[in-house]
């Protein structure tokens, strides 16, 4: 019989036993990376759904908006329930508009500027809602491999120390430790790769959505500006 086998019974090589035999640091790294992966995928799923909903809602709103219905009517319809995307922009701007007219003797002088401010704030809020948690993906994507590598280095370090201690360089003794260590890097990559891809994709989606919101805000503020001028002319007349 091979003396190496006598010295160190060959370790089981299933994934689970690999995890159990790893040193505690490597175990922590593995668990952390696994959790990061779960979180990443949570974000990915949620964001994907969110973006899809947002896009659908914006399509729907634009259709309604340009259908020729009166803004007042549209406003009363939308303000009854919480809105998202363009609808929230529209509601915020209309609310500001209405407040200016409800107050008697209100001047139109600053109205245009106020509406624009409100629109900007709304866009920022919407984008912030879309963008939230995307940085987690970025962090996992960039840090995941390093964390995994740390686990690997640590694991290999440990296994080399045990080689030195056992004075046995048989591959059967060395292999399990190295496999465990490499498993950490594998998990790190497993978490990081989808995170990186999803982050880039969603970053693009957010930018697209933001551009769409801004263009709507510009159009809407142009419409409101025209209305303001008409009201001002009426009053003057």
């Amino acid at each position, binding site marked *: 019989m091979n003396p190496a086998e006598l010295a160190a019974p060959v370790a089981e*090589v*299933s*994934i*689970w036993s690999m995890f159990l035999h790893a040193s505690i640091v490597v175990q922590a790294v593995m668990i952390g990376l*696994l959790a990061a*992966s*779960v*979180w*990443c*995928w*949570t*974000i*990915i*799923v*949620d*964001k994907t*759904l*969110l973006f899809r*909903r947002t896009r659908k809602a914006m399509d729907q709103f634009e259709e309604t908006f340009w259908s020729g219905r009166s803004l007042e009517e549209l406003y009363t319809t939308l303000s009854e329930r919480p809105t998202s995307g363009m609808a929230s922009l529209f509601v915020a701007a209309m609310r500001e508009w209405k407040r200016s007219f409800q107050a008697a003797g209100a001047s139109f002088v600053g109205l245009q500027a106020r509406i624009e401010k409100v629109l900007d704030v709304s866009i920022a809020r919407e984008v912030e809602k879309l963008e939230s948690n995307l940085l987690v993906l970025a962090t996992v994507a960039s840090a995941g491999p390093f964390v995994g590598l740390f686990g690997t280095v640590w694991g290999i370090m440990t296994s080399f120390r045990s080689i030195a201690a056992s004075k046995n360089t048989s591959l059967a003794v060395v292999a399990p430790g190295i496999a465990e260590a490499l498993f950490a890097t594998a998990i790190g990559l497993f978490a990081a790769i989808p995170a990186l891809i999803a982050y880039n994709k969603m970053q693009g989606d957010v930018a697209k959505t933001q551009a769409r919101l801004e263009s709507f805000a510009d159009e809407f503020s142009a419409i409101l500006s025209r209305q303001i001028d008409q009201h001002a002319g009426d009053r003057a007349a």
Partner: protein
Amino acid sequence: MTVSRKEPGLVVSAAAHTTLLAATLIAFNSPAKYDDAKEAIPVEMITDQAFSQISKGEKHAKEAKPVQKADRLADVQELKPTPPIAEAKKDVPLPPPPLKRQRDPGEDDAQKPEPQKTAALPPPRPPLEETKPAPEPPKRPEPPKAQAKPEPKHEPKPEPEEAETVAPKPPQRPKIEPKHEAKHETKPPPKPPEKPRLKTDEVARLLARTKNDDKHAKPAVKPKSGEESEEKRSKFDTNAISRLLDHDKPQATGSRGREVVRTASLGTATGTSHRMAPNMMDALNSLMMEQWMRCWHYFGTSGGSKYYPMITLRFRPDGSLAAEPVLRNPTSDPALASLAAAAMNAVRECNPMKIPSQFSPYFDQWKNRTVEFRPDEMR
């Protein structure tokens, strides 16, 4: 994070991960095992013979020059004429060329009883010294040879070996005579025999001196070569020669090898040398025994005594005896003496041993053998 219908991400994600993990656990639970790949161990097959021949040398040993020590070479072997080497000059007794020639002729004579094999050496030497005084290099062997022909019985020892060696060069002899002994020329036939005697006598003295210093010895010889030597001639006794010759031995006790100097300290590239494997040695032993058994005519036993005749043999490469066999343990008991005699007879009778050519490369190892004849095993 609250779980809402709008944000089912956490649930979905957790469920997906759990599923994936479970799938992974199942899928990778038993990783594919590699076939047991035994490490290949390079194995080199060598025969037992090759193993027994291993004689690795030191890698960093000084390189030995391929110099041949002439020493004793000559009696047994036919080596190519080696050019006189620096060392050769120091050792008075070594004239390489004559010695080699002696061997071939010697074979025929070897069987005759010759008390001393070394006799061959001394005769060549005196001629060597003579050559120097003579402006024209005559060949030295002639004097002994001349002696051999006229009086073969007087000196059996020098005769066998030298008689033939010189044979090819009879014409040169006349040259020597005129110079050395102009006065004796008048009687050509009788004198040649005498001349050698003078020289041999001198040899005796020379031998004594040579050890002290060789250089002085040579000049001393020159004056004596003439008439002075003749006077001593009368006192000459053949036995004296053998005595003197015996003294000569210690001068050249070097190993007698077919190849003279072996670079023993240097490993060869292959790490093996010409050494007989034990199994070859056994084969040779049994081969020889078998032949001797055929020549064995003694039907007694050793009579319970522990006496077994031990005979030392020297062979030539062709398997014939290079010298008279020597009984190492003579006995006074007549019964055992007959046993010894039977052994000697067997050895002589089988004289040209048939040694297969496969053993010839190892001549070095079997040229000298001491054989013990046990009558119980010989039949």
